[in-house]
């Protein structure tokens, strides 16, 4: 009987220690998870990503570990660390194959951010085709993917395909189609033309619609050219040399500005179109649900 009591006592002690160990482990995870959420909400995405990586290392279950790696990738995406996004997603996918679609979405975003449009197109196409084959229900993911795909195709200069991608979206998006149509109607500026027009101070800026810059460039160049001519007339060669140096800066600036303004115009036009296509649609994970990935969508 004494032996049984002794065994029972040992068993209780063992159970107590196991419970303590589980509680300690759980509180560490909860604390780190809370810290990661707070860092993310403060905009310290890189620090949040590191905390999620730490959580992934602490986690023993593969599915849960994959969730934390995915969250880390998401935070790295927010911190514009695109290489690390892909690295974290590789790890997430190594641990679980259930999050492929969510991973592809983040991979596509990271590729767009890193200007790797062909890669982004591949990932987005994978999401759309995979969903068509498996007849999966999350039409919201497909809608987001279709809109992103349209943006990528427009950036590649393929507006027809962009329109087609939008037409495949399960949720109709007429604003996006209108944005593509409006982009098609507009015209890009040719940087070479901008540069040539920049030979006449200010004209390069006018070509891209930057009238205030054009006036400033014209006035600055006008003043300095006049001053140069004046000093040359008076044979004040020291002043003439100094003025020539400055005029050279403004004049070459006018040419460079003509080219840069054309590029700026094209970039702004493209970005406005992509913004209009996305039409405030976005996705974000519910961080409180982690390591289970639960996406929230906005349209």
């Amino acid at each position, binding site marked *: 009987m004494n032996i049984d009591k002794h065994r029972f006592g040992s068993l209780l002690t063992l159970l107590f220690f196991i419970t303590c160990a589980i509680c300690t482990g759980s509180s560490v995870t909860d604390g780190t998870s809370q810290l990661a959420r707070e860092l993310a909400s403060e905009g310290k995405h890189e620090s949040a990503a590191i905390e999620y990586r730490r959580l992934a*290392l602490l986690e023993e279950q593969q599915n849960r570990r994959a969730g934390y790696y995915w969250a880390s990738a998401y935070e790295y995406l927010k911190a514009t660390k695109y290489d690390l996004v892909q690295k974290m997603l590789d790890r997430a996918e190594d641990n679980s194959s259930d999050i492929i679609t969510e991973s592809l979405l983040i991979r596509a975003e990271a590729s767009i951010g890193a200007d790797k449009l062909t890669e982004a197109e591949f990932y987005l196409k994978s999401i759309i085709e995979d969903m068509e084959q498996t007849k999966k229900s999350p039409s919201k993911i497909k809608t987001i993917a279709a809109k992103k795909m349209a943006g990528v195709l427009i950036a590649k200069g393929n507006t027809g395909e962009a329109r087609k991608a939008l037409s495949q979206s399960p949720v109709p998006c007429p604003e996006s189609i209108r944005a593509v149509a409006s982009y098609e109607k507009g015209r890009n500026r040719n940087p070479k033309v901008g540069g040539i027009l920049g030979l006449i101070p200010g004209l390069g800026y006018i070509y891209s619609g930057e009238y205030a*810059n054009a006036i400033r460039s014209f006035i600055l160049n006008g003043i300095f050219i006049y001053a140069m001519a004046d000093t040359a007339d008076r044979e004040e060669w020291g002043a003439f040399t100094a003025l020539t140096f400055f005029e050279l800066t403004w004049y070459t600036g006018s040419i460079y500005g003509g080219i840069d303004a054309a590029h700026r115009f094209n970039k702004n036009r493209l970005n406005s179109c992509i913004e209009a296509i996305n039409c405030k649609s976005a996705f974000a994970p519910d961080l409180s649900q982690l390591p289970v990935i639960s996406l929230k969508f906005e349209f």
Partner: protein
Amino acid sequence: MTGPRRMEQIGIDRVINLTFFPKFRGKVSLAVSGTFLFLLILVFPLKCTGETCPESLAVDLFAEGNFGVCIQECSRLIAEDKGNETVLLLQAVAKMRSGKDNKVELKNITESPHYSPATANMARYELARAHWKSGNIRNALEQFKKLFESSDQGPLFLRAGCSINLLIKQYPELAEHVCDIKNQLDTCSSLWSGKIIDECRISPAGKKESIAGTPVQWMISFYRSQISPALGRRCSLQPSCSEYGMQSLKKHGLLGLAMIGDRTVREPDVVANKPSPVRIGNRWCYKDTVEEHDWWMTPGRNRK
């Protein structure tokens, strides 16, 4: 045990041997030469397995070049386990990589009796490379020589020999100091593969900056040091126009002059649009970087 845990206990010999397995050579191409060595020592399971090892986050951060956070992570691990000499070594090297002159700490590791010979040799290799990078070639040679003579790890031995050879080629006046080991160097020279040579080589300078706009840079430097302090900060953009000028001249040579001209014309427009405000001191400035105006010079860039 009072000192750091002996590396033999955690199988570091096996780790060092695995460190130089060809399948991991791809990682040599990580930007910093020499990173490879320390990176891979820790990639392998030490006390635990795979990526769940507590050191693996610190190792990853080191490999990613995030040295500041790596140092913090190492401090956290050291607080939990003061005897983890792998982490102590990693932290010392991370401090070095982050720009801090940490030769003293590395020297302490090489000389301390608490560390295993394997760790001491690793630290010695890094110390020697640090001396070489800072132009202290005699000390570099001395450390490489000690390593060459004392190391019983093949990969480190080869790299020490190869580094001595490269150092002598770069500074022929040092040749007289290695007469005693010349035969050994000649014997093992056939084992230095191209990759080992590339890994050991330290290029004297980084990316060359354009010198075409140097006179203008002098003028801007003069303005920044002598005139600007009297005027105070007048530019509403970040970086300021003089800093923007310096950056563009360094990056693009005389083309930077045109970029300065364009910037001065654009400044009021940028301020009016208020993009990306940045608080500097008591005033708001607006971000307008060189990269925002030369991105199109890089082929394949479509948009930011």
